[in-house]
């Protein structure tokens, strides 16, 4: 059955294919348009460079009025990513607007990788190292990058 959410997701997918932002990709899973797989490539000139990080995006029938649940499947070491892969990002919570689409979500997460917000930590160890011991932080991140090749 076509619902506004499903119809909108078809449009999001079409736009993502026709006008793909650099460094991100995403597509619905084979038999369910409400669940997507996505990949974000680690941005250049950051410790995440060369990483290919996988995510899942789960939509409800309330999309785009409510944000989807986005989660990293790849292991991440980042101040704003929880141990279970959940992401602490304002536009996925209280600053969500129905005018955002999948492209906007993925590019926002991509820029979160470049610019972590250590003041609102989801992973306090990562936040602390990011602030106080950048070398160790980068070492831990690089380990994730290498892990992402295998995942």
């Amino acid at each position: 059955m076509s619902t506004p959410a499903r119809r909108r997701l078809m449009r999001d997918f079409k736009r993502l294919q026709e006008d793909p932002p650099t460094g991100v990709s995403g597509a619905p899973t084979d038999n369910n348009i409400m669940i997507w797989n996505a990949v974000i490539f680690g941005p250049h000139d950051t410790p995440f460079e060369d990483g290919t990080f996988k995510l899942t995006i789960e939509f409800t029938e309330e999309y785009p009025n409510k944000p989807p649940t986005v989660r990293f499947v790849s292991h991440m070491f980042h101040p704003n990513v929880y141990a279970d892969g959940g992401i602490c990002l304002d536009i996925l919570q209280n600053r969500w607007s129905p005018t955002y689409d999948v492209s906007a979500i993925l590019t926002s997460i991509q820029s979160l990788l470049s610019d972590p917000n250590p003041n609102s930590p989801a992973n306090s160890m990562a936040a602390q190292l990011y602030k106080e011991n950048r070398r160790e932080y980068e070492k831990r991140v690089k380990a994730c990058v290498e892990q992402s090749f295998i995942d």
Partner: protein
Amino acid sequence: MGDQAEGLTNNSSETNIESSGNQDELIMAQQRQIEKEISETIPLVGELEAITTLSSEYSTDEVYLSKIKDLVSKYSHIRRTRPDGNCFFRAFSYATLERLLGDKEEFIKFYKLAENSKSILVELGFQQFTVEDFYDTYMEVLKRLADIDNVEAAKKELHTIFNEQGYSDYMVVYLRLLTSAQLQKEQDFYSCFIEGNRTVADFCHQEVEPMYKDSDHIHIMAACSALNTGVRVSYMDRGTGTTVTQHDLPEGCIPTVHLLYRPTHYDILYV
């Protein structure tokens, strides 16, 4: 970022909170539970009820009872809306269309206004791709209503559409976008009403465009101009006096939509 989580995690920033789980999701889950309870008990837009039914909500409250008496002398019916933060936009949109269904000429004028609205939004910098999605649904609804000749049948269809979550919410989103556009178009005027150091555009992104954000006076003023519709709001609260306070927006208009405001909530009134 993650404002909601901030308060919870500040105290424990020294310890490793990775193990304490995803606080954001816990908060959101609780919020969803509350929303679910509301949505199971109150329809998005209710049936017409006699205005006197309001008294039963305040059986022992003298201030409210005397104000309801005043309201009863002015209005015959009330139509309740779900208190989900969208009540103003949903009530205003519903009441506007309901009135237009009885006035073919005005409806056609409104249809043309709506038809031209997309290009105005795109010119203001709204992303064409996402605006189109809401615009298409909005126009589809208007068209569905226009195609029904019998006024009563059209009103019934309106009621059905506004109680289908998908359609109903899209009607709300589009009115929110139109309201945001109106605020930004006349930002010199509206900027005086915005508190803090926010620009009109910031205010729109944070308080107008997102769903479930409550409406203030400023939202109503802009929504009225956007739809070229006058509204009379009757304010009923525990303040002094025995009558409800009424405001017409824009000032001096001939109101065609009547709303009841009780702290944090709007319902539709009928003369």
